[in-house]
């Protein structure tokens, strides 16, 4: 039985019936983030910390500022859950109260420096003419030790929460700008960027949907680590007396106070250290989940 394959009519390659429907269609990065157990645990932990800092001091029986010389350096007990400090102030209340300033500074500095840094990085990558001057200026900023630069700024501006945010943001901007610039330069040389130029897509599209969207992963990671280091930098400023007014407790200043008494009153340093670790853990979990959510390729099939 002869079969003439040359006349077998398969008109046009037809891929329709061989394409398998994907089991789950993505519902944007929000849906993808919510599907991540790790991300949701991190978010829950962060919410818990923020809530405790907002509500805790109000509910507490103690005032973070009231001095009680009799109960000096008391170990954790029923009345002082995390003990007292060298002036007899309740450590738990101070820790939760201090979290307000620390969290506010960390959130504000990270947001401001990421936004400005990303913008500077993007325009530097996009325009060769802007690149040189902007990058040299940022290099000059980076050449100063960051704490020294922040101290100098604080000395000029005077102690207030707004000035701390401004000084630390300025110090953090160059790092984010360099990071975004280097990933954006890689993206710029990809075939899809060249095609976008041939299609003459508009500048905002190129900057946001192409350069920024494809530089998100390292930026998110750097931002979560950045938020943690901001808290420590603020602590260093407070320790040197160039940060927030000494009357405002922060995790950083509590850590610094605590290290003096580390031998005989360990709880002074352990309490703010522990909550700082928890915060970092939650931020890293959120950061990882966000990075995966922004990258469609990481989706499990």
């Amino acid at each position, binding site marked *: *039985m*002869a*079969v*003439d*394959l*040359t006349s*077998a009519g*398969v008109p*046009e*390659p*037809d*891929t*329709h*019936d*061989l*394409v*398998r*429907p*994907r089991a789950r*269609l*993505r519902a944007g990065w929000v849906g993808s983030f919510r599907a991540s157990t790790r991300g949701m645990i991190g978010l829950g932990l962060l919410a818990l910390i923020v809530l405790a800092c907002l509500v805790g001091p109000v509910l507490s029986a103690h005032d973070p500022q009231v001095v009680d010389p009799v109960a000096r350096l008391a170990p954790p007990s029923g009345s002082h859950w995390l003990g007292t400090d060298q002036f007899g102030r309740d450590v738990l209340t101070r820790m939760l109260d201090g979290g307000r300033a620390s969290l506010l500074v960390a959130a504000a500095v990270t947001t401001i420096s990421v936004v400005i840094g990303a913008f500077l990085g993007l325009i530097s990558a996009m325009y060769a003419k802007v690149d040189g001057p902007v990058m040299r200026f940022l290099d000059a900023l980076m050449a100063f030790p960051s704490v020294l630069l922040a101290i100098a700024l604080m000395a000029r501006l005077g102690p207030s929460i707004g000035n701390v945010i401004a000084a630390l943001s300025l110090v953090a901007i160059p790092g984010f700008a360099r990071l975004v610039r280097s990933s954006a330069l890689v993206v710029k040389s*990809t*075939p*899809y960027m*060249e*095609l*976008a*130029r*041939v*299609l*003459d*897509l*508009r500048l905002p*599209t190129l900057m946001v*949907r*192409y350069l920024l*969207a*494809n530089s998100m992963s390292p930026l998110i990671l750097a931002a979560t680590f950045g938020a943690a280091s901001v808290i420590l930098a603020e602590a260093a400023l407070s320790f040197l007396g160039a940060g927030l007014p000494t009357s405002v407790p922060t995790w950083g200043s509590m850590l610094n106070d605590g290290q003096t008494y580390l031998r005989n009153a360990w709880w002074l340093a352990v309490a703010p250290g522990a909550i700082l670790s928890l915060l970092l853990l939650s931020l890293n979990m959120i950061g990882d989940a966000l990075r995966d959510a*922004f*990258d*469609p*390729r990481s989706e499990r099939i």
Partner: protein
Amino acid sequence: MTDAVLTVRELRVRTRGDAPLALVDGVDIDVGLGETVALVGESGSGKTMAARSVLRLLPANVELTAGGLSAVGTDVLAADGPALRGLRGGRVGMIFQDPMANFNPVLPVGRQVTEPVRIRQRMSKRAGDKLAAEVLGHVGIPDPERRCREYPHQFSGGMLQRAMIAMALVNRPSLVIADEPTTALDATLQVKIVKLLRLLQSEINAGILVITHDLGLVAELADRASVMYAGRIMETGRVGELFARPLHPYTRALLDSRPEGRTGADVRAIPGEPATPATRPGGCAFHPRCRLRVERPAADQARCVDEVPVLRLVALPGTTGTTGSTPSSSLAACHFATEMLTVGHLAQPRADHVPPDPDSAPVVTVAGVSKRFVTKSAWSGRRTGVTQAVDDVSFTLGHGESLGLVGESGSGKSTLGRMMVRLIEPDTGGITVHAQDASPVTGQQFRRTVQWVHQDPYGSLNPKMTIRRLITEVLARYRLASGSRAARVTELLGLVGLPPDLAERYPHQLSGGQRQRVAIARALAVEPRVLVLDEPLSALDVSIQAQVITLLRRLRADLGLSYVLISHDLNVVRTICDRVAVMCEGRLVEVGTVDDIYDRPQHPYTKTLLSAMLNVDPEDRAVPASPVTSTARS
């Protein structure tokens, strides 16, 4: 076979885990001394996994089982660390696909080439350098004393591939495994590498296992070949018989889908995508794409779906048992392999494309275009070199015409393509694009007239956007189809043969062929008159190449497009183009109709390019078998 250097029986490679995928599913391979055996297949066929199993060079997440696996007298399955190291780089040499990625950039090439020797025997630095120069000279690298001290980035791709071959052969192995040894190279270089491999093989009489997707290379180099599909061998036999009388429908379909520049025979695409281990259908893995099956009665068709065909010797009609006059050495895994013998060979004439009127109004006029690139030292800013990429090139592209731009890498054809889409500006000369009324097109209208398809389908779509958004953003940019954009996306996808539900996917969820179709759909969204296609098929599987060729021809007929097809593959150019322009070192050396260029080439460079074209006729090799090898085998 007494002089076997590689014997593989019932090789299976599976992924570990709860739902294992069979990457290689019961494969037998035999390689004798002095023999060249090819494993041919498309992506996902498991050919590379099978070859890497020979040296147990497998990723950690797969497991290997086999009924028997012996290489150069060593039982690979039972071998311990020292025994395996003795094989790797010692009695078994390996040649990898991408020489750039397989050399350490911070060590001199000479030292790396002799490393397989130096780690096995003590050798003075002087003796090592002498050996390096000797082996590099032997593989045809000029001035080897100097070049063996140079670093990989100072070598060209072809020279580095020669060095890799030298490294694989420096211990005079009995078995060489070559994984896509010519894929990253230009056609003319491919021929040179094939020539070198044949020559060296005749010297050391090694067995070669070559892994490739290129049927031309198989015909050129191999004595026997096994065709793999979805982890199984579909057909195995002597190359001459395999190509002259394929017994498996898949082999036949592969041969038919390969553009054949020499004869100008038409391509015939295999429908669908190649099956991968994850998508392998039951029964015969090839049955959803099989042409032979659709001609069979229903009972036979069901058999293809239900029963896995075994690889068996095909009894030829008219012969009984083994006493027949034409004994076949081919084994095929097809229930109806004997039917294949009665199937006529596909020698379809070129499709019904009518070449455009040569006097039609031009859409693009390229007049005296030149472009030079100046390389500057990053340190001092001084000029370190000047490359004349394109040198005084002029031609016109007529309405509805397809022009092939061919040449080796570095000939300036891609630079010319980039100037045509205004990614870069020419230094002198001008490129004029004409509107329907012959007036020159400027500004935004230019972008709507000339569009570009990039060679890399994996990199040409923004990975963060769905296919729908990728197409919609183009429509939005030019305020096209406002109000009915969803319908227009569906229409454009349909135009390139993709289903509408694909619009919600991300690029990484598509195959290479599907991505290239999306890239074409995006270019078509602006309703251009001219497409500049920069190597649009080079990253695709053979069967998918034929699909895209068919698509490009249909689009040209339906939409009245003109193409500039940039390619180093002369076989592909002939199936699509009306005229061919040959570029060499930035200059246009010859322009003519397809028939003139292929049948009556004038310029010596064109003749060189044509002679380097690998075709699938093993009787007509670009590199004739050297007398040494043929006597050794007979």
